[in-house]
């Protein structure tokens, strides 16, 4: 089997995913094109050598529909040989795209691919995209569907995480993200996004709330109480009858923020790197996805991490740093307990609670953040993980070279 290496990665800054967000005026394809353009330019990449541009997009509708991977490559001026495809593994789409790129390389069927993702949540809002899971009565009823926020509150209720636990976690995420930004840890990987006149619209993650305290968060009302009372709490308890009641601990301050963003990771063989003058930064050791119980939904990361560790003949101690997407604070707290790891080993520069979670793009972003931090700390191995709608987990192990 051929080894797959990561040569470089870039991402857009994360702009607030609303009409007042700095990236709202940028079309999704334009956003991804600028990221792809930057990856090409800073590596002086001969894009005719790119076998495939694989992009994760969750809400493939409207402007984001119909394969924006290929469309953005064309729009960015990539050589016509660079094919493109869109894939969807919900919140892990970006990481799945990198894994998919790696799989093509490892199988010997591609030399050089780009994986990553895109989500312009301000322009294709979450609640305008249907699909069967929540909406089709036979599917939703039969699978005991509840929205993710209810799943997160269910995890807290079932495993006994309190409002204070999740708020404390969120405060620390803000502190770490704020520190990392101020110290310039993200600078090298962020592509400033420009408007049509060439003026920079945004060059940093604009959602970080520096100085957030537990007292600040204590003032926020739970976000999922009302929909819980409509019936989703009852559905959650139908699936988990040992739970007496659902405690609604999550709110806007301890859940991932809604943002716009795009990411791109360059993956290829050692040989193509040598030929094109690209220096490998990390090797993709292994990756895995797994399904988990769909109603509680967000407990898939630990089993997927254990699956990939086992497959690679490794254990938790072999990993220097962990990244798990902060979809909701409780997801990380539960994961730490399951994996037996401490907070100082995971999400060391904060995460989506502070910076936002541009669904399809996030996987590429957290992977990139992990590589940068391993280099900065002069460490070796890292494991990146995302929880996923419908009850799944995806994980990837990388090793610095």
């Amino acid at each position, binding site marked *: 089997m051929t080894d797959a290496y990561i040569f470089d990665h870039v991402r857009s800054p994360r702009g607030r995913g609303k009409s007042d967000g700095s990236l709202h005026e940028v079309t999704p394809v334009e956003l991804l094109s600028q990221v792809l353009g930057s990856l090409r330019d800073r590596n002086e990449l001969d894009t005719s050598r790119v076998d495939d541009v694989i992009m994760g997009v969750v809400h493939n*509708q409207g402007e984001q529909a119909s394969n924006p991977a290929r469309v953005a490559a064309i729009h960015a001026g990539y050589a016509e040989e660079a094919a493109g495809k869109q894939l969807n593994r919900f919140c892990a789409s970006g990481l799945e795209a990198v894994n998919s790129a790696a799989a093509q390389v490892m199988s010997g069927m591609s030399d050089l691919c780009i994986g990553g993702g895109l989500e312009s949540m301000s322009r294709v*809002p979450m*609640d*305008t*995209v*249907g699909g069967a899971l*929540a*909406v*089709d*009565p*036979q599917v*939703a*009823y039969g699978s*005991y*569907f*509840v*929205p993710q926020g209810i799943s997160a509150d269910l995890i807290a209720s079932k495993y006994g995480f309190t409002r204070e636990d999740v708020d404390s976690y969120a405060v620390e995420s803000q502190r770490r993200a704020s520190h990392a930004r101020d110290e310039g840890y993200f600078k090298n990987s962020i592509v400033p996004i420009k408007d049509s006149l060439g003026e920079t619209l945004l060059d940093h993650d604009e959602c970080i709330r520096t100085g957030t305290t537990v007292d600040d968060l204590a003032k926020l009302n739970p976000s999922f109480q009302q*929909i819980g009372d*409509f*019936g*989703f709490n*009852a*559905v959650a*308890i*139908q699936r988990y*009858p*040992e*739970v*007496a*009641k659902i405690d609604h601990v999550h709110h806007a301050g301890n859940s991932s923020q809604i943002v716009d963003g795009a990411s791109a990771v360059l993956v290829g063989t050692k040989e193509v790197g040598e030929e094109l003058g690209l220096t490998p930064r990390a090797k993709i050791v292994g990756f895995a996805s797994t399904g988990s119980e769909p109603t509680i939904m967000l407990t898939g990361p630990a089993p997927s991490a254990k699956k990939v560790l086992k497959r690679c003949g490794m254990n938790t101690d072999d990993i220097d740093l962990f990244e798990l997407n902060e979809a909701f604070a409780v997801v990380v707290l539960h994961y730490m307990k399951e994996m037996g790891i401490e907070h100082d080993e995971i999400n060391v520069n904060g995460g989506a609670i502070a910076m936002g979670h541009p669904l399809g793009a996030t996987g590429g972003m957290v992977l990139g953040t992990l590589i940068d931090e391993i280099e900065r700390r002069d460490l070796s191995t890292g494991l990146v993980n995302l929880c996923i709608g419908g009850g799944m987990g995806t994980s990837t192990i990388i090793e610095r070279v």
Partner: protein
Amino acid sequence: MSKNIKMNIDQNGIAVIEIDVQDRPMNVITVDFADDFKNCVEQVLGDEKIIGAVVTSAKNDFMAGADLKTMLPSLIGLGDASAMAERVIESHKVNRAMETGGKPFVAAINGTALGGGLEITLSCHHRIAADRKDAVLGLPEVMVGLLPGGGGTQRLPRIIGIQPALELMTQGKHLKPQQAMAMGIVNELAAPDELLSKAKQWILDGGKAVQPWDKKGFKVPGGFDPNTKGTIQMFSVVNAMVAKNTNHNYPAPISIVSSVYEGCLLPIDKGLEIEAKYFVGLLMDPVSGNMIRSLFNNKQSADKLRARPDGVEKHTVKTLGMLGAGMMGAGIALVSARAGMKVYLLDSSLESAEKGKAYSEKYFQKSVARKKMTEEKKAEILENIIPTIDYSDLKDCDLIIEAVFENREIKADVTQKTEAVIGEDIVFASNTSTLPISGLAESSGRPHNFIGMHFFSPVERMPLVEMIMGEQSSDEALAKSLDYIAQIKKTPIVVNDSRGFYTSRVFSTSCNEANEMIKEGVNPALIENAARHAGYPVGPIAVQDETTIDLSIKIHKQSIEDLGDEYKPMSSIDVMQKMYDLGRLGKRFGGGFYEYPEGGKKFLWPGLADIYPVKEEQPDIQEIKDRLMTVQSLDAYRCLDENVLTTPDDGDLGSIFAWGFPPWTGGVFSYIDMVGIEKFVARCDDYCERFGERFEVPDSLREMADKKEKFYP
């Protein structure tokens, strides 16, 4: 002209189709009617002289739904699901012929139109309803586990929009004509005597013979697009609400939602096919059969006094003597006065008697505030409730009901005082819930007139009355009592005397089972959720707090006193005793198995886990559900075996309406049938070994299993 329909053509060429189903007080859809109706529509469409048709009824009401007793068996008799679906799809054709035949059809809805009756009107191009206060419109099929299978799930949302249609059909709501008009189900209201002329006028004015959904570019009112926020949110919430309300026990509501969702995305003909398939799916499901049998057929026959002995002249209570003005007495006085009776409400002090009347005052005040009753009507009813302490007031009463304190001496005393003034042949009914009737009758000089009449609390809401025959209670006493129960519009069951009778005795077995589970270390939250998810209205632990641990221990002590060595207490009496000793006496006393924080929601008392630690390994929730329902069904069978019950029908009705045995099962005996007696016996044997001899199976049930018999054919 046909047996079930009269058709006349007027001088303008308007056909008036008058539905008049033979030998039925109310029009219902029968196999014959369906044939006649089809011929009629064909005649309208085929006869050049006819320019359009008015569909109305020759009876006081327009039409109820399909005749459940004949239509469903004829469908189910086809045996094969696809054949059934084909038959249903075929039956839609007449409606489509009306809609697309090019001649205007207008429905003149002269009275109540429900189910299949309303569906016929939805196929008309225009609907006019008589503005009657006593008429209702609706699609109530969900109440018997079905969906509107005559196109209702397709036409109603296309007429009034998805959300209101879902609400009406999943809840089986009834609407007054004015409400139906406001929702857009009917197009016009008319005074009853102008209905026909208005309907004809609509045709003469050039009413269009085309349905909205047959026009190009049709859109469902209010919008329907699974890629828009409104539709996504609506369905995701509706799906969850249905799951919440049904606990996945009732298949009809989600089938209705699916039929609407899937069908409204498609052209109507395809939508009708989708509906037909969901309809047949429900027909094949045992739940609809259970609900039709118990909630419809058996209830109807109980309400019509199936159990009334022949040969006793109909007895009407004009004046009721109500002994005891406590909660039960006050409630019985309320429902009796509401039914037009004069009630002497007697208690030991005038103050107590007045307090009992005040209960009705408060209740009817609310009805007035909600505009459900006029101030005059309220005053009239209240005037008929006469508080008293004077036994001589009872002398002209047609019936006496006793609901004094559950104490033999007190009951004996009021019995004798009453019998001293009332007529020889007046029935004396005791509303005891715990004391055997034959024993109480000993204090009566006329034990043949003495009978048990067990009401449930709150009387004005609970639909059931359990009649208890003492050893000497006469058929005449029973017949007269049943006539009274019909007067107050309750559903009676009749049982023979026994400790706890039927309902109290069997109900308590699930509480005992829950307490046994607590002893075993089962998580109490899991037990409560299992019961609710099975379809009980309240968990078996919470219910003990409601009825109070105090009362359970009191009954326990009374039983020891009464029966001595013969008394076999519940196997988990030690749990009750423990709670009692700890002063956790129930909700009314501030706490029991639950804590009741002021202004907050109740939660399970954490101290319970210290006494009965929750074990690591927990049983599957299905086993908990099975145990609760099995223990009650088995004890109900013992009641049948011991002749406490005389029919499974009474057992089923009692279980659903007295203590909320999950209605989707059809009641305790329908439940055993549904599980299968053989499997039920095997389960009891297994439980007997694992959990105790309370699951021991009577030989007679084992014989039924061996012979592969059932309670219902």
